[in-house]
């Protein structure tokens, strides 16, 4: 029970910090049910694994003297979608920022935008990690108590 409160407090903190979009994340929380109590943890974990992969790909392009904005753009588009779906709004905004820089043909701004995406993702990744760790312990403690 106390762990659930902790989780709720953590989520509220993330809403207040603007890291999570309340409406969307709330939707995800509502999807949790008896058949799938770990749904939030599953989605967050999936998002982090997927984004780690995407940023890994982006790293390869970052080093080039001329940024391949099309290739980078394709990855950023993916990330824009998935971040929006989990409510990671600052990551989404950073992706939109890249799109604007791309449309304005501003290479420097594109580079900056990619860096900003990484930064925003690091911030939320840290919080998501805490959330997942907290949840797993919560699950384990509850399961042990029920035996």
């Amino acid at each position, binding site marked *: 029970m106390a762990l659930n409160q902790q989780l709720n407090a953590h989520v509220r903190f993330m809403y207040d910090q603007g890291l999570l979009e309340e409406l*969307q994340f709330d*939707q*995800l929380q*509502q*999807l949790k*049910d*008896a*058949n*799938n109590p770990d*749904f939030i943890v*599953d*989605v967050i974990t*999936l*998002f982090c694994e*997927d984004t780690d992969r995407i940023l890994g790909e982006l790293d390869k392009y970052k080093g080039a003297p001329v940024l391949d904005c099309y290739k980078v753009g*394709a990855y950023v*588009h*993916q990330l*824009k*979608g*998935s971040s*929006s*779906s*989990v409510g990671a709004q600052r990551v989404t905004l950073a992706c939109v920022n890249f799109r604007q820089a791309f449309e304005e043909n501003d290479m420097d701004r594109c580079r900056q935008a990619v860096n900003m995406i990484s930064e925003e993702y690091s911030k939320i990744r840290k919080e998501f990690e805490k959330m997942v760790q907290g949840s797993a312990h919560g699950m384990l403690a509850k399961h042990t108590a029920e035996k």
Partner: protein
Amino acid sequence: MSSCSSMSSKDNMLHVLAVDDCLVDRKLVEKILKSSSYRVTTADSGKRALELLGLGDDNVSVQEAKVNMIITDYFMPGMTGYELLKIVKESATLREIPVVVMSSENVPTNISRCLEEGAEEFLLKPLRKSDVSRLHSHMMRSS
């Protein structure tokens, strides 16, 4: 631990094929649909979706189970959701299946061409539970 689905109840459940290249979105759409008691199969590409529908390159593939609706993302690498929609609507065996297109981008020209091509609806992502309840009326009942 209780399980909702058994062999007999699966036959009565409406079956949705959800197509999206984004892993997170696939998970989300699957969960939203399942929590509304639909049976869900997911595909990560238009090509894969066509294989599951029985229109694969290898004529060996057979439509596993009847699909009552296809819901697809618009922007996908390789084959877009629009292209998938066209192929489905041009197929004698598949054209009756209702298709819903979803996208995170609100582009009016994309929306209208999908509707013109026969899509039932165009939904903006991220998908909400309320969007799904609207889909029910479009579902194709098994004959």
